[in-house]
């Protein structure tokens, strides 16, 4: 039985809406940040819903592509967000590696962004696969973009696996940061190699980039809305994943302190 008494457990006040409503007069920085994040979430959700509504119901079918064009409003945004997420992870990883800007928060941001990136990469693969299925009847084509995305998926799943490894936090963070740099640098190399690889075979041009599509008017706006909304969604998801990481780190730290205190208490007469 532990002789150490923990402070009484109360629900932390942060994260709960003040009684006066969302725009109540909380002055603390954490309150303001919370409001901002909530607004971000609402904005993202609204944008996504609008995109889907426009994409599924309002926009017209396209010449040659018919109903398939509706996938255009979500597939490219998925790919873009994955790219954005990995780019952000690269930036924070580089900053982390630079001794002057080393900060565990950067490491947590990198991990959070990469995890969200992996989710979006998976969705890119799914939507791309569906596109291929409806257009050419096959679930998978060795299209340069799709293949690069698949490799990207595996690359960053590996990165996430590295992050989960038990060990000294700073050591793992440094190693993960290097892995992030290596992975990101590999992407253009992979893309070019796969493009050349594909161009050698006179296979019908599997044009998942949809370059033959003429997008105008409402379709263009819907696409733009899609890009914007899902980018906002990335930001919101990343912030929450980052918070979760911060909480878990604190939990680990405090667990350690409790354990140390318990050991010390055992030594007392």
């Amino acid at each position, binding site marked *: 039985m532990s002789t150490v008494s923990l402070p009484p457990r109360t629900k932390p006040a942060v994260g709960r809406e003040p009684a006066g409503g969302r725009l109540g007069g909380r002055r603390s920085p954490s309150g303001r940040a919370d409001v901002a994040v909530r607004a971000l979430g609402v904005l993202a959700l609204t944008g996504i819903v609008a995109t889907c509504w426009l994409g599924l119901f309002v926009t017209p079918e396209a010449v040659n592509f018919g109903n398939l064009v509706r996938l255009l409003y979500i597939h490219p945004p998925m790919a873009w967000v994955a790219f954005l997420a990995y780019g952000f992870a690269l930036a924070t990883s580089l900053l982390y590696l630079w*001794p002057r800007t080393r900060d565990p928060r950067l490491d947590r941001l990198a991990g959070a962004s990469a995890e969200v990136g992996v989710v979006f990469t998976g969705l890119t693969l799914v939507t791309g696969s569906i596109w291929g299925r409806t257009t050419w009847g096959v679930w998978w084509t060795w299209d340069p973009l799709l293949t690069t995305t698949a490799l990207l998926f595996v690359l960053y*799943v590996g990165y996430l696996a590295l992050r989960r*490894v038990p*060990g000294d936090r*700073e050591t793992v963070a*440094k190693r993960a940061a290097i*892995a992030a740099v*290596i992975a990101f640098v590999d992407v253009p*190399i992979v893309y070019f190699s796969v493009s050349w*690889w594909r161009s050698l075979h006179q296979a019908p041009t599997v044009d998942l980039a949809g370059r033959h599509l003429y997008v105008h008017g409402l379709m263009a706006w819907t696409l733009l809305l899609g890009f914007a909304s899902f980018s906002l969604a990335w930001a919101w998801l990343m912030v929450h994943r980052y918070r979760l990481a911060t909480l878990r780190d604190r939990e680990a730290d405090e667990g350690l302190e409790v354990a140390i205190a318990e050991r010390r208490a055992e030594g007392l007469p």
Partner: protein
Amino acid sequence: MWHDAALVCRKDLLIELRSRVGLNQVVPFAAAVLLLFGLALGPDRRSLLPAAAGLFWIAVLLSAVLAIQRSFAVESADAGRDGLRLSGLDPAGIFLGKGAAVAAQLLVLEAVLTVGVAVLYGVPLGGGLVMAATCLLASVGLAAVGVVYGVVSSGLRVRETLLPLLFLPVAAPVLLAATKAWKAALSGTGSQYWTWLSLLAVFAVVYAAIGTVAFGPLLEDS
């Protein structure tokens, strides 16, 4: 830096010469892989021959994982890693030295496997210069990225599963380019191999550069 690299490279190669783990374990492993591919794809030469170049390079890639793991396993014995850090050697030099040693072992492996592929799959060897250039550039690239990942996964309990997971996807362009270059060389189809060789060169240079810069901070901790 170069002096340190030569020292480390010589040390690693000497260890290999004396223990012969590469010769006794990695090369037979690669040969086994070639055999298993043969078993899987059937005795018919018509299905093996077109795939031969690709199978060769996959065997090389898998063996490279072993070679890299071995390169770092020798350090963890007798607290070698601490010794390496305390020796005052330039980290970039350590990286280049280890990379060179791994690359050298890979080249030897590839030479043996080339014979294996010629015998088992009936590959008519030709275009030797391109094949050799491919082997050289690919080995350097694989060694460079492999040694970085090797230190990233060193000292961790899960390193046996982590290293292949990290290494193989990154090495995918090397597999692609090397296979294509070999195919071009073997079938004698003109100048297509230039794109592939240049890709391999870019890969090697980029990852050698990254490794040289990154090895310092990586080696700081255990």
